[in-house]
């Protein structure tokens, strides 16, 4: 305590006890995440050759490539349909609005296995959507499309909810003024509303993308093949144990973290 009291700002901390206590409580969770991942990364550095093996293994690279690219596809689809919905929900009040918002959030609540089974039910060959698609020659199960469908279902609430909150923070009066200055509603959306809500939309997209990459259960049921990273990791773990699955895990989260950090940096660049 003697040492502590010499640090600048200690008096301030004493006056703000609640923050100190809450910080220590919160640090439990931060440590939980940090130690879990840190331990995995640290142990991997002790076993560097297997990591090199993973980096050079074509099956591993393909699985990671599939995960990343399918998650991007899923996020783009969520963006294309979700951003308009988010804007609509942010601006309009109507009876039944909470029902729509509830439906959007269902994927957050249900077990992923259950979502996978439900998706399988409609996308399989005889399913409500699967059957007509099959007639067009499109197969969803055990195909790239299946991975995207499973990822999209599980990740769409993140993008829609975050984007909606972002749009809500854009004062409708800014839109009013823009229109009084002669801008059409479309142009107002393009030049005022969307750019101002963009940081939130990007946050939502990042969350959604991260959620899509990590989706396991629903993808497993709908499309075990082509094999994506989480499934490959699980397969290695059940067949060969921790040592075999860890390098792939480390590689996957390393790539994800790099992308995540890059996007955050990009988002942080605001000059107003």
């Amino acid at each position, binding site marked *: 305590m003697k040492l502590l009291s010499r640090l600048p700002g200690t008096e301030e901390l004493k006056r703000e006890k609640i923050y100190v206590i809450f910080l220590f409580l919160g640090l439990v969770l931060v440590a939980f995440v940090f130690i879990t991942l840190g331990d995995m990364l640290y142990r991997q550095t002790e076993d560097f050759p297997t990591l090199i093996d993973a980096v050079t293994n074509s099956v591993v690279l393909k699985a990671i490539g599939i995960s990343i690219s399918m998650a991007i596809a899923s996020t783009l689809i969520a963006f294309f349909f979700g951003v308009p919905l988010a804007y609509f929900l942010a601006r309009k009040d109507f009876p039944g609005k909470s029902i729509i918002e509830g439906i959007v959030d269902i994927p957050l609540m249900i077990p992923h296995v259950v979502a996978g089974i439900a998706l399988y039910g409609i996308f399989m060959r005889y399913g409500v959507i699967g059957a007509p698609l099959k007639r067009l020659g499109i197969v969803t199960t055990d195909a790239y499309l299946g991975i995207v469908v499973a990822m999209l279902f599980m990740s769409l609430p993140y993008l829609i909810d975050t984007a909606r909150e972002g749009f809500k923070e854009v*004062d409708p*009066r*800014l839109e*009013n*003024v*823009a*229109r*009084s*200055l*002669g*801008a*059409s*509603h479309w*142009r107002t959306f393009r*030049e*005022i509303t969307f*750019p*101002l809500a963009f940081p939130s939309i990007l946050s939502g997209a990042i969350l959604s993308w991260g959620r899509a990459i990590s989706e396991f259960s629903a993808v497993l049921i709908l499309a075990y093949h082509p094999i994506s990273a989480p499934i490959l990791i699980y397969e290695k773990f059940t067949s060969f144990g921790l040592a075999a699955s860890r390098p792939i895990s480390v590689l996957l989260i390393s790539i994800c973290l790099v992308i995540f950090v890059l996007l955050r940096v990009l988002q942080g660049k605001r*000059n*107003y």
Partner: protein
Amino acid sequence: MIEVSDLYRDWKEFSLKDINIEIKENEYFVILGPTGAGKTLLLEIIAGFYFPDRGEVRIAGKEVTNLPPEKRRIGFIYQDYSLFPHFTVEENIEFGLKLRKSASPDTTRKRLKEIMDWLGIAHLAHRYPATLSGGEQQKVAIARAIAIEPSILLLDEPLSALDLRTKDYLREELKKIKRELGITMVHVTHDQTEAMVLADRIAVMMRGRIMQVGTPYEIFNKPQDEEIADFVGVENILSGVVRNNENGVAEIEVDLGCNIFAISDYRAGAVKLFVRPEDIILSESRGESSAKNVMKGRIEALDDMGSLTRVKMDNSLVALITKQSRESLGLQKGEEVYATFKATSVHVVR
């Protein structure tokens, strides 16, 4: 110029009922009313941001009730300025200019510079709104609105969030805009001083209705009923019965137990009397005065309001006197004084 007829609109906690107003070209029209009266909503309907449930809005003789705002060419200024935070001052002002069909980069630049010089904000051109003071932001908002050369400028509580000095300064700027650009201006406020200083005409709005339209003199001295009188600061509201009327001078017996003379055509019946507190003169003796009404009272309270003092008497009258006359009379609490006011200062309504 702007005609609003039989307009109704329900919106959240506000509703507009039976709105009929006619605003003339080049007029400075103030809509004055308490918070929650629906003033902003009315302005937003004129601008086209919202549409009425019923009724009509005409601008320059043309029906625009369902025309979107971008087709109306009406400048709009909000209380919080609503500058686009991701644009610099220059980009904010340019926004509307660039959208004009006739806009070429050259004319846009020229006009931009002209406006910024005129309002004295050229030095702010490359700053972002978040770095500006309230007064500066409001000037940018004004510049942005007048850049598109609107024929009408709508202002929603434009001075309310500013400190006194800035407020005074911008009030003069608004007068200058009206004078030099010849724009029809509609200004919404709850501030009586603002209304009095700026308005050619005032509409008093309460609970979604237009209660009275008139010149500042009419609104502040001849309010139509007790509620308006109370809102515009007529602090002396008396009830009485007309006992006599000679050549347009009514003698009214008031509840206080004395008779008051007023200019009125009423010959009998119950009436309300309004006397503005600044129309009452206080003196220590009855004295010789041309004023018709003299009432004796004891001072109950003296409230210092800066340059004015508000004197409350036990006969329920309230007078506003200058600091000077307070000092020269040496007024003290508990002292007896005579309150004098002219018959012409008394406004009588049924």
